[in-house]
């Protein structure tokens, strides 16, 4: 009987699934079992679209269709959490199995806190994520840095700090992510700053870090993170869908080391990005300048997992004068005011901004400050957001005691 905290190596029992899947196909096998056995009504996963750079979400109800979701796509930058809320009724009426990167999981928790998704109906298979690369950037990078026609690449992966490609003729080529990222290629900026590498808020956390010995590359490391996850693993093993063995202790150690180095890398990028922003008025100036390109395409709001209000404040004419290009700065201020405490740094707002405004950078920069001030970390548990905790009387008394009418002295 598996329990929370247990760690295994797992792989699909079916040879074809092992072959097609990533590192032994455990994730695919687990989800297929969940579907087949009726643990879930559907699986929301990602499959390859027109090529390896194109990730398409897909809702699967027939276990036979699970095969096409096998394998990993490092250009899959999409966020599944908002999709689930918007188009699948937030799992209110059906049980859904879903693969989640760190950001997907964090997004689901934030939506759950706001009663927009029903976590009880969601079975989350977390996957380790070192970061994803935007498809068009990946192609440009492969063409210009690797000197290879992106259409000749059959497989890509990020391993040991390198972006590695495999071409049709079987050749491998790897370049260090550091080198790529210093030149503006590589992972999305928010991914570089991300420190949610092993999503333990999911039901199972899976990946290839820590799989050593003869199982290296052939098995998936699975950490059980909840009772639901334990049940799934047990049931799948019992039904012969997956095979498991306890994780090698040395492997566990190595996994911890890799995770730590990824976290350190996240710290390094945060420092770099946030310092670049400057402080106080200088930072505000930068933000006002960049957001001056905004064409109000609403991609930031439509894609943000925290934004779900039917009556969005930015659409209130008395707050934001409509029909103006660029919209008044109040548009962005409303976003910062409403989201900053809970921003999970998923990067969707920046990736989809029509004018390439570094929205995620600004929001994340605010969020880390809020986290310092209020000690709230979004996306990891069901702790309510900061804004939900203000008690009016207490706050007014505190303010009165300062002798000033300014909640924060912004002119310091």
């Amino acid at each position: 009987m598996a329990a929370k905290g247990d760690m295994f190596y797992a792989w699909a029992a079916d040879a074809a699934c092992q072959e097609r899947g990533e590192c032994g196909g455990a994730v695919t096998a687990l989800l297929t079992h969940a579907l087949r056995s009726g643990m879930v009504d559907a699986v929301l996963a990602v499959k390859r679209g027109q090529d390896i750079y194109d990730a398409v979400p897909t809702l699967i109800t027939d276990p036979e269709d699970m095969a096409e979701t096998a394998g990993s796509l490092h250009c899959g930058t999409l966020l599944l959490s908002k999709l689930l809320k918007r188009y699948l009724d937030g799992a209110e009426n059906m049980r859904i199995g879903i693969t989640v990167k760190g950001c997907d999981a964090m997004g689901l928790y934030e939506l759950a806190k706001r009663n927009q998704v029903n976590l009880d109906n969601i079975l989350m298979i977390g996957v380790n994520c070192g970061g994803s690369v935007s498809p068009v950037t990946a192609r440009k990078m492969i063409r210009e840095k690797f000197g290879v026609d992106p259409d000749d690449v059959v497989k890509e992966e990020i391993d040991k700090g390198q972006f590695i490609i495999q071409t049709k003729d079987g050749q491998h080529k790897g370049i260090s992510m550091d080198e790529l990222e210093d030149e503006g290629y590589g992972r999305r900026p928010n991914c570089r700053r991300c420190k949610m590498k092993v999503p333990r808020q999911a039901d199972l956390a899976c990946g290839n870090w820590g799989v050593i010995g003869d199982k290296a590359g052939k098995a998936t490391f699975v950490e059980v993170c909840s009772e639901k996850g334990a049940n799934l693993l047990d049931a799948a093993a019992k039904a012969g869908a997956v095979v498991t063995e306890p994780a090698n202790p040395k492997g566990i150690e190595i996994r911890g080391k890799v995770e730590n180095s990824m976290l350190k890398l996240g710290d390094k990028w945060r420092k770099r990005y946030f310092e670049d922003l400057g402080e106080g008025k200088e930072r505000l100036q930068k933000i006002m300048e960049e957001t001056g390109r905004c064409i109000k395409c609403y991609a930031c709001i439509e894609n943000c997992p925290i934004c779900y209000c039917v009556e969005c404040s930015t659409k209130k004419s008395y707050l934001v004068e409509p029909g103006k290009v660029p919209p008044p700065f109040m548009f962005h201020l409303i976003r910062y005011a409403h989201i900053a405490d809970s921003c999970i740094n998923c990067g969707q707002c920046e990736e989809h901004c029509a004018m390439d405004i570094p929205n995620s950078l600004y929001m994340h920069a605010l969020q880390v400050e809020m986290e310092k001030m209020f000690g709230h970390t979004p996306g990891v548990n069901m702790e309510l957001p900061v804004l939900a905790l203000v008690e009016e009387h207490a706050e007014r008394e505190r303010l009165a005691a300062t002798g000033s009418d300014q909640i924060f002295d912004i002119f310091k």
Partner: protein
Amino acid sequence: MDFKYVQTTCPYCGTGCSFNLVVRDGKVVGTQPYDRSPVNEGKVCPKGTYAHEFVNSPDRLTKPLIKKDGKFVEATWDEAYDLIAQKFKSYKPDEFAALASARVSNEENYLMMKFARGVMKSRHIDHCARLCHASTVAGLAASFGSGAMTNSILDIAESKCVFVIGSNTFEQHPLIGRKIVQAKKNGAKVIYADPRYTPTARQADLYMPFVSGSDVAILNGLMQEIIKNGWEDREFIEKRTKDFEKLKEVVMKETYSLENVSKISGIPVESLKTAAEWLGTNKPGAILYSMGITQHTVGVDNVRSVANIQMLLGNLGKPGAGVNALRGQNNVQGACDMGALPNVFTAYQKVIDEAAHKKFADAWGFPDGICEPKLGYEVTTMMNVLTDNPGELKCMYIMGENPMLSDPDINHVREALESLDFLVVQDIFMTETGELADVILPAACYAERDGTQTSTERRVQRWRKAQDPPGEAKQDWQIICELAARMGYAEQFPFQSAEEIFEEIRRVTPSYAGMTYERLERPEALHWPCPTVEHPGTPILHREKFSSPDGLGVFAPIEWKPPAEVPDEEYPFVFTTGRILWHWHTGTMTRRSATLDTEVPTGWIEINTEDAKALGIKNGERIRAVTRRGSVEVPAKVTDDIMKGVMFMPFHFHECAANILTNNALDPIAKIPEFKACAVRVEKITEA
């Protein structure tokens, strides 16, 4: 529950962005980014974000309608087809005219063209390109042998100097505006000329406000300055062009000295000097232009002047350069490529050319022949003929166009269309034009069709069907086929799918011959010309030589002429028109998209602050704008973002229709109306 993404291309502007339609249980419920798109990388403008909102509007036409006693009555398809077939058969070829649509697919435009020329044997077919880039098609064909955007959208980012004139790119082609931002990040200088301080002006390094209609003077002046400083590309001029001396003779005249150009245009001499220097010393340079250049009685002159300056600078045939005509509609490029023009078949093969005529007649196999090898009427000419020579044109078949709001001098258009004996309108919503029809045919919208469309950078991309059309609405291509069959031409219209139509298009269209639906599945799709299935497509034109018979670019000596109607005592202001970010053209789709409509629910007239003060007009005040054509009541927007002496109205709003005021003066070659300049006066409305 059925949930899927259907990847498709945007139905609004000519940038050719892709996005996903979200389909739940067979209905389109939203849009989601398609990150893989090479053109827009998952990003869209607000129209694209909300491109699903109008699709399932309760206003959608769902049944054929026949007008009986002045009222529309629902009918069956059989009734509608029988009536149309009977009426169409009663007209001679020259009595019939068709308007194809820059918004439907290539396949459908091709079929409308085939219907007009093959079934009706008529030479009169045109569409709204006439109102927008007719000057480009004619002008660049004369200068380069090919009338299309020379470069690709992606390589604009590689430019070292971007000159935007007559295009408010950040509102009209926002994802092309993004390329300008990228060029700037790579160190490019951005020059912007426009009577209005628009969102594009905000992004420019040099903003040159100028009086609408002085483009040739400005361009000639810049060329004089370039030549004076020796910044021209002599090697390019010598090897790749001809008639340079003729051009030089004109542009070096005193008329085009910077001092004089400044008087004509209103641009300070210093700005003109800087612009010339930046253009002359920062190469490769790209020019982006749109309606401000084309919609004039000298539209062709303006276009050729843009071609002149780029040939002078050697800015052609390489990345980051080019004459980038930004085509408005999503498929106006395709509609032109498909020959929905009165002078050409597909791929611009001339109607009057005996060989071309025979090629199409043979390929189509109409037993009773096709139209004569003669030029037909442009839509603007059709309107004039209807009012000036009643009885000549009796019948029109209009697909996906709304001339009652988009053509100049709407009162004239109404008179013209009302004089028709029989009018068939095929559309997705009832429009101002539809109201005048005898028969309405309900059609499918972009989310309900398979097909191809061609963006401004000549990239042919797919539309993919995401849901069924509502009620009894049908695909435009199906309607045309069924109507043709009803008239006895089933054999010439045997198509069971859009792909089958595309296969026929390939056979007669050299620039599309190498394209197949399979090849177009790739996200990159294909830029024409693509003559063979091995050919990779052509993102950049004129690399080694131009498309003219001798491969040389042709300089054209052009003198500046003022607009047909300039301000005078009675109408003291220049009146110009244009688009805005939130709405699309006659608003049939965007005004039914709640989010977009809420942003901008109605129109306005922009008046400079000083002018407003002198007239005693306040911001928001409802006033009357009057030209020789008519008058409209419209709220005033008093702003410093427009030059003194110039006024602007967006043309999207039927309740204050800018085109009631515009002038039906046409460019003599392109027959494009001068939407961008006429004379207006405004008056306060005093209650009786």
